[in-house]
């Protein structure tokens, strides 16, 4: 069955430090992978996505993620965190079942806190 695991429930980093959020997936075919961010009281904003091609993808707000098929991972990185990056981050896999039976399967999220 398709699933997404985010091993870290809560991460705290200092402002200006680098960040890596982990994501592992289980999916039988080539996955469509996404990272979303949710600020308090807000909806989900797409940070970046991987469909095919270059395994290092760039997103908004200075984020990037690397798809590693051998490790079934799609970790999110940022070289220097800003206080405004404090939010909940969700990794998701697009479960495609042909036709229009598409849906996102989400991980449990990682809450990022940023220390001044």
């Amino acid at each position, binding site marked *: 069955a398709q699933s997404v695991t985010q091993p870290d429930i809560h991460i705290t980093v200092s402002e200006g430090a680098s960040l890596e959020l982990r994501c592992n997936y289980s999916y039988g075919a080539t996955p*469509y992978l*996404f990272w*979303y961010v*949710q600020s308090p009281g*807000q*909806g*989900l*904003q*797409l940070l970046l*996505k991987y*469909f095919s091609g270059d395994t290092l993808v760039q997103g908004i707000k200075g984020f990037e993620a690397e798809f590693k098929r051998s490790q079934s991972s799609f970790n999110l990185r940022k070289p220097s965190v800003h206080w405004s990056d404090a939010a*909940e981050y*969700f990794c998701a896999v*697009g*479960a*495609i079942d042909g*036709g*229009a*039976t*598409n*849906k*996102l*399967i*989400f991980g*449990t*999220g990682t809450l990022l806190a940023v220390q001044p």
Partner: protein
Amino acid sequence: DTAVSQTPKYLVTQMGNDKSIKCEQNLGHDTMYWYKQDSKKFLKIMFSYNNKELIINETVPNRFSPKSPDKAHLNLHINSLELGDSAVYFCASSPPARGAEAFFGQGTRLTVV
């Protein structure tokens, strides 16, 4: 212009009541969804519609009835509300052939008291 908008943003109601949440998207997408985020922030799909046709019903109680009057609108009606229905409900839409990439609304926080 807001791409996916849902109303209301907050909804507080008593057990047993019936309530509706409305969603509209102006992105021209054929596929729309309802996702539920529980108190632990876990997100799970409830329904998907493609061009007004129900595609996914993810074992949601039949007290929940989605309705899509046209492909730009997907409403969610909930009958006989229960305490356990308290959650944030997100509407979303997807363009075709994009791996379920979803554009989300701001969410409706439903509190049942």
